[in-house]
Structures are given as structure tokens and as C-alpha cells.
């Protein structure tokens, strides 16, 4: 089946006064129709910028410098602006982090909905108003008919994010990009909003790219997870596998840094030493190597491409038989103990 979204070898550059920064380097992933792909990674890893590139709204001077983006098999990364505009909102919907500022304060909710609907669909104003009302009902806003004539400031944060979801889904897009849709919200409404988003997209068969810091949200919502580190893919795989049996040393660190309800509350959380490099100072070889406990020779020299690892893929030389053989036995034993499924036979690892 053709993926709803296919990103191939994406490279995003940001020219600055001090040279060209590579914000995304050789990133590839697919999202199937109806699938939810979680995007995780530290602040600055490049999650938002990937979303912006897909919907064609990279902030200048940022630009797609390489690779391809396909929407349902059709290449969209090189479309002229006016054609890309017709894809935005119509075929790709986007939800931003802050519902408080996503809505224009001077326009009524109903007018913003009608405007969006009529931009993408041939309808009379009356039909568009009916549809707007139905959308508000669908996202769970009580008294939808009267709320159409309310202004954004008359809604609570959670309600505004529901309106934003209604706006993003107004033209039934086949892909929805949600960039930290609940970070700015009260904890008590976060779960509701995520559940709502997931249900509406499932009903429409829309693919979802869900950007978030919250592994809990990912574990509950996503089908697959894409872990980014310094603008590069670290690991990509089914959500259960990545959460339970992470295959990249960075993901292993990330997972053990999450507090669990069942764990011992007195036990200190594991922390990955050091911090993610700035864009201008990414080390040679694997971007993660200075912080990695399993580092061996090729890691500091050559950049690992994604290898098959467990049920998914991981950009780590431990998963490349040809390289893993060169690793010290101690490193391999530790990796094995940490749950990394080495691709070389056990006997060789022990040698």
C-alpha cells in the first residue's frame, strides 16, 4: 500500500552568518494511512522543523536541501507555493502547541471555520456554517451552534485546542501533523485531547505525525515511534518494541530516564551524561558517540546509517555485523545485557 507520507533522505539546511547548519540530515520514514507515528527527541532534535518541511512552511532561511517528500505517492517538496497552499489544510492538517495563540483573537470561531472550509471546498456559506457546527459537535464542544459566534478568548485552553483540531480537520486531510498538541494544556485535559485527536483521525483514516516529549502519550497513542537525535534518525520501530526493547543506546538512555509508576520511587532516574550537541558542533561519526557507553572505533569516524534492529531499525554500528565484530567483547556483553539484539551470533560476541 502507498504510504500516506513518505519522507526520503530528507536534508534541511539553515544558512546562517556563521555557515550553513544542517538541522535534519538524511532522515527517512513512512507513515501508512490511518497510522500514528510518534516523533520523539530532545528539545532541538529537529521534530518541529521536520513537520514544517512536510507541510511546506519552513521558516526562511531554512530550506529543504535534499531528499524527497511524498504525499500518497505524489512528490510535494518541490511544488510551486500556490499549489502547495492548496495541499495545506486540504490534504495535510497541522495542529500547533499553543491553542491560546493559534486562533486569531479578532475573528469569531465560526468565521474562522467557515473561512477554512470555503477555502478548500465548494460550498455556500450556509452549507459551510452547517459543516462548521458539525465539526464543533464532533470535537465535543457543547452548544456548538451558539459557540460558533464566540470569540477565542471566551473559550478555555482545552476548548480552544478542540477548536484548533476542528480547524485542522475541516477539509478531511489525509495526514495530520500534531506538534506537541497538549504541552501547553492542563494535565487533566491532555489525555482527553489526545484521545479525541486519535479517534477523529482513526474515523477519517488519516495518518498522524504526533510530535511530543511525552513518552506516555506515545506509548498509548502511537503505532510506531521515530526517535530523533541532533537532526538524525536514531531509532524507528513499532511502539511496543521501542519502549520495551530499545535498540539504540540513545533510546535505551531515554527510556530509562522516564519515571514509571511501578518502579521504586526512591531509585534515582538514570540520566544520559552530557547533552545533545548544538547544530554547529555535531561530532564526526555518530552524533551520539561522546555520550555513548558502547562507543567503539568506527563510531567516532563514520556515521552509522539505519540498520535493521529488532523489529525496527536503529542507526548504530552494533547492529551492523561487519562492524560489531570489531567491538571489544566487554562492550558486546554490556550491550547484550542492556537488551540490544546483536546481529552477530552469540559465540562470536563472547570471543
Amino acid at each position: 500500500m502507498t504510504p500516506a507520507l513518505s519522507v526520503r533522505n530528507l536534508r534541511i539546511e539553515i544558512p546562517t552568518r556563521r555557515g550553513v547548519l544542517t538541522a535534519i540530515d538524511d532522515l527517512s520514514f513512512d507513515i501508512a494511512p490511518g497510522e500514528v507515528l510518534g516523533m520523539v527527541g530532545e528539545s532541538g532534535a529537529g521534530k518541529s522543523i521536520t513537520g514544517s518541511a512536510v507541510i511546506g512552511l519552513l521558516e526562511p532561511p531554512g530550506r529543504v536541501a535534499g531528499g524527497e517528500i511524498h504525499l500518497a505517492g505524489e512528490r510535494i517538496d518541490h511544488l510551486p507555493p500556490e499549489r502547495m497552499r492548496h495541499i495545506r489544510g486540504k490534504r495535510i492538517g497541522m495542529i500547533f502547541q499553543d491553542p491560546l495563540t493559534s486562533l486569531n483573537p479578532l475573528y469569531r470561531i465560526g468565521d474562522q471555520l467557515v473561512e477554512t472550509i470555503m477555502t478548500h471546498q465548494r460550498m455556500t456559506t450556509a452549507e459551510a456554517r452547517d459543516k462548521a457546527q458539525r465539526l464543533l459537535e464532533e470535537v465535543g464542544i457543547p452548544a456548538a451552534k451558539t459557540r460558533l459566534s464566540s470569540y477565542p478568548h471566551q473559550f478555555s485552553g482545552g476548548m480552544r485546542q478542540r477548536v484548533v483540531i476542528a480547524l485542522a480537520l475541516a477539509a478531511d486531510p489525509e495526514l495530520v501533523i500534531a506538534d506537541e498538541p497538549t504541552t501547553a494544556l492542563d494535565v487533566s485535559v491532555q489525555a482527553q485531547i489526545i484521545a479525541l485527536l486519535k479517534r477523529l483521525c482513526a474515523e477519517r483514516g488519516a495518518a498522524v505525525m504526533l510530535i511530543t516529549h511525552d513518552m506516555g502519550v506515545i506509548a498509548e497513542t502511537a503505532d510506531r515511534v521515530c526517535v530523533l537525535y541532533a537532526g538524525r534518525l536514531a531509532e524507528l520501530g513499532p511502539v511496543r518494541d521501542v519502549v520495551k526493547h530499545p535498540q539504540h543506546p540513545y533510546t535505551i538512555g531515554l527510556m530509562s530516564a522516564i519515571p514509571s509508576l511501578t518502579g521504586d520511587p526512591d531509585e534515582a532516574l538514570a540520566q544520559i551524561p552530557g547533552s545533545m550537541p548544538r547544530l554547529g558542533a555535531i561530532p564526526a561519526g555518530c552524533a551520539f558517540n561522546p555520550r555513548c557507553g558502547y562507543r567503539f572505533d568506527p563510531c567516532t569516524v563514520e556515521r552509522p546509517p539505519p540498520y535493521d534492529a529488532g523489529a525496527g531499525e536503529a542507526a548504530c554500528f552494533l547492529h551492523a555485523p561487519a562492524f560489531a565484530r570489531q567491538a571489544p567483547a566487554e562492550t558486546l556483553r554490556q550491550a547484550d545485557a542492556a537488551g540490544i539484539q546483536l546481529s552477530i551470533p552469540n559465540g562470536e560476541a563472547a570471543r
Partner: protein
Amino acid sequence: MIAFAIKRFVQALGVMLVVALISFMMFRFVGDPVNQLVGVDTPPAERAALREALGLNDPVMLQFGRFVVKAAQFDFGISYQFKQPVASLIASRLPATLELSFVSALFALAVGVPMGVYTGLYRNTLLARGFLAVSLIGVSLPTFLIGILLIFAVSVNLGWLPSFGRGETVNLGGVWNTGLLTKSGLQSLILPSITLGLFQMTLIMRLVRGEMLEVLRTDYIKFARARGLSRRAINFGHALKNTLVPVITITGLQLGSIIAFAIITETVFQWPGMGLLFLQAVQNVDIPIMAAYLLLIAFLFVTINFIVDLLYVAVDPRIRIGGRTAG
């Protein structure tokens, strides 16, 4: 909304009373009104009678009360130099100043807003940079110099437009002499309006540009783009409307200053308005005219402010709610 309007109205009244007090004090502290009215050789008895007749021997508060009541009825007394009622003098000059001021403000808006929008949207183009450079000149050159340069270039050298006066005027209903209905009247308006409005135009342009840049960075514009709205809908619907609140404020406040600062332009172009009248009054220590002018300008400022406040409410729904809870 009504409560909000009433509150603002009461505030405006307060301001007017304070200004009235200041104008009233001019009478008492800038020379003796009786001396201004009579000749040098008037006998003291006659002076005393006049003083009594003018009520100058009454308690100060009573005099002030009388001043306010009269002013509210547009009775500002008799001009010392013209020996005519101040009200009728001002009424005959008011149309000239108001027409000049409104045409200037219109010019400033009609040119300033589009230029601001353009320089905000296409800030890196050559034309936008050109606009900015020109606007710098508009801000830094003093009004009288601009006026003189315009007269020199357009009237003297090219001979296209008149350099002074109002041209022919038409009397409307016996109260309003308008220059807007004759060709020479309109021609005479052009140079003074540009002179008076240029500063405001550049101000509005820079304001709109700054606001545009600010608004274009906001999340709701980003979201509007993500929804695939057309450029026109985004730039002129969502962005421009959000810049309007500050533009209305500044334009409103500037309208007051335009009227007040018309003095300079009126002098340069010998424009027969209130400003010219006021300058003559200052030279001749004609206190009634000065006091009336002060009150009138204050009245215009206060009225404009009041209207601006109400306009805000019409544009920005958030103020509506705020006003209701506050009032």
C-alpha cells in the same frame, strides 16, 4: 458597553474642567483685563465701573463658575484686539483649519497604511527600502522647512499650485466656508495638506510596518498558513486587522496634534485658520482668543480620544469583555 462609554465620558468631562481652570487663570495672571479693554486715559472711576460690570470683584470660584457656564455656551467674551465676540471669530476660522487637518489626516492614512503594509510584507525589496529611507526624511525635516521647500519647488519653480491662501470658498448654510467645492480651493489645499500630513504619514507607515512584522510572526498567522488560506486572506484579513488597534489609536491622537500643529503650516501658507488667529492673539496678548483656542483644542483632543476608545471596542472583542467586567 454603555457603562464603558459613560465612564470615559465622565473622565473626558474632568479633563475639560482642568483645562478650563488653566484658561481661566490666564485671565487673572496675564495682565489685567480692564487695562486691555480701556485706553490709557480712562478715569479710575470708569475703570472701577467696568471692573464691577465684568464681575471681576466677585469671589474667584464664582468667576470660574461663570466662565465655565459661558464657555459651555460658546461664549468666550470679546476679543481685545478685534472688539468682536471671540466665538464668531473662531467660528469663521474653524472651517479652514478643520478642512486642512482632515485632508492631511486622510492623506497620511491613505498613503501611510498601504506603504506600511507593503514595507512590512516585502521588507527586503528595493522599493520597501526606498520607502523607509524617504520616511526618515519625513520624520527628521521640520514642518516649516518642508512647506517652504514645497512652495519653492512646486509653486515658484513649476508654478503648478498656489503658494498661499485658501483659494475661492463657497459658503454653506451661512456657517461653513468650504474650499472643497472649488477648483482653486482644492488646488490650494494640496501643498499645505502634504506639509501638515507628511510627518503623520511616515509615522503611520512605520507603525503599520512594525505591527505587520510583529503580527506576521504570531502563531495564529502560522496556523492560518497551515490551513492553506490565501495570501490575500492572511495578509489583509488576519494580519492587517490585527494591526488596526494601534493604528487607530495613533491616528486618533495624531489628528489632535495635526489640528494643534496646524499653526506652523498655516503660518507658512498664510492659511486663514485658527492657528493664524492664535498667533496674532499671542502677539497682541489677546487673552480671550488664547483661552478659547486652548479650550477648543482640548475639546477636540478629548472628543477624538473618546471616539478612539469606542472604535477600539468595535475592532477588538477582547476589550468589550474587559470593559464590561471593569465597568
